């Protein structure tokens, strides 16, 4: 345990600025060389530490019960939400909105200041190489840190204030609160409380229509598959939701995205103009909701 003067145990290294700098390696004094009451880590100290840990654990549990973790509505690219990172990134987020850290100065924002600040923090021991440990005797290192802390606190507060103002101005309520209220309302009415997106398989409309045969004959199936669920091309089930008959005819005749013009291919496969018209009409009827 404690290392006495005659201890044969390997000495435990204790760095101490009170040791004068000398020539060569100085055997560092071990804990027993210090006046005062050291204590065994196991079991004495660990037991006390565990008691503090238990108090912290109870605190976390109280927090989780009184403030449930937030959950909004399922992600949707078209939703109007003010984007906010988690609170400990707010200072960076706000900083990168400043005029000299965004737009054409963005490199100054990301690499210039942020990169240098975090790089300096990473390499602090190699920048602050003096032997003095007390912070009030290291004015440069300490004042830089105090300055950074002040900036972080200021920027975090600015980001949060701005967010609150924006929410109030646009009349938005945080989605996690909306979801909880909606769930509570639906529960009271006996309706489903889930906000999750329910996926229903879209059916083929009028499968017995002669156009289904035309669809196969015109080689549409090579990309859109015999069950219309798509493969090389997108699924055509429910295509009538997004395109009308005219739109579909245009796509057949002129192509879209990766899809080439298929009109001539269909004609070569033996379809007439009327057949293609029927086919487009049938596809336009493919709506997901009847």
């Amino acid at each position, binding site marked *: *345990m404690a290392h006495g003067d005659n201890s044969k145990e390997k000495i*435990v*290294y*204790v*760095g*101490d600025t*009170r040791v004068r700098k000398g020539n060569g390696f100085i055997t560092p004094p071990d*804990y*027993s060389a*210090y006046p*005062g*009451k*050291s*204590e*065994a*880590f*196991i079991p*004495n*100290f660990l037991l006390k530490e565990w008691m*503090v*840990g238990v108090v*912290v*654990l109870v605190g*976390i*549990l109280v927090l*989780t*019960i009184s403030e449930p*973790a*937030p*959950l909004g*509505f*399922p*992600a*949707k*690219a078209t*939703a109007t939400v*003010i*984007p906010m*990172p*988690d609170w*400990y*990134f707010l200072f960076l987020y706000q900083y990168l909105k400043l005029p000299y850290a965004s737009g054409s100065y963005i490199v100054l924002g*990301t*690499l210039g200041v942020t990169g240098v600040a975090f790089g300096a923090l*990473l*390499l*602090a*021991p190699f920048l*602050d190489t*003096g*032997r003095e*440990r*007390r*912070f009030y005797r*290291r004015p440069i290192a300490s004042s830089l840190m105090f300055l950074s802390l002040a900036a972080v606190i200021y920027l975090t507060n600015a980001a949060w204030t701005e967010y609150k103002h924006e929410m109030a101005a646009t009349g938005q309520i945080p989605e*996690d609160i909306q979801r909880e209220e909606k769930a509570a309302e639906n529960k009271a009415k006996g309706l489903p409380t*889930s*906000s*999750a*997106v329910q996926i229903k398989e879209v059916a083929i409309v009028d499968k017995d229509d002669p156009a289904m045969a035309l669809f196969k004959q015109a080689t549409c199936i090579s990309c859109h598959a015999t069950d219309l669920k798509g493969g090389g091309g997108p699924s055509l089930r429910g295509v009538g939701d997004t395109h009308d008959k005219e739109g579909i005819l245009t796509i057949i005749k002129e192509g879209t995205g990766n899809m080439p013009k298929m009109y001539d291919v269909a004609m070569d496969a033996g379809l007439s103009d009327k057949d293609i018209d029927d086919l487009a009409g049938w596809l336009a009827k493919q709506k997901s909701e009847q």
Partner: protein
Amino acid sequence: MFKNVYNWIDERLDITPIWRDVADHEVPEHVNPAHHFSAFVYCFGGLTFFITVIQILSGMFLTMYYVPDIINAYASVEYLQTKVAFGQIVRGMHHWGASLVIVMMFLHTMRVFFTGSYKAPREMNWVVGMLIFFVMLGLGLTGYLLPWDNKAYFATKVTLEIANSVPVMGPVLKELMQGGTIVGAETLTRFFALHVFFLPAVLLILLVGHFIMIRRQGISGPL
């Protein structure tokens, strides 16, 4: 009985030095709050580790329900939050623990900085500690997307835009994290893999290094 089993193993593997190295050391007076209450500042490192353990345990339980795909991710989190017994508590611990671990780690970093404990011979341990800090921020960033709600989705879009603005590396970094041209199914699975496998593995390796160095060098002496 236990003693015999222990001796049997110890004879063959000599395991005593391993645990004695962890157990047999003294806590000096100047870091013990029982003697000087102001020494509570030395507790933040231990509390960071304690909450990290909570994060690992609660995270392990969360993966029992979580489904990392864009159709089911939200539904699985919502189910866990509202239907599973104690699910709200486990998710709550992971959610609040993520913030607390940042707070504790920040306080620990400030303690080490202002007591000048990073000075020779402990430079390497400071660097490893900062790397742990960055990995923790990475864990926070990747974990934020996983519930796949609007807040997560739009925050990640902004984050990836910021990554994109870094010169030279930016666009590559963005595409690597995003796994394509949009924030979508690939992004979610990548963030999930990073959050659950890659970053925790790196974190554990760094933590082992951090602790070995503390045991080798001891706690820095009194000011």
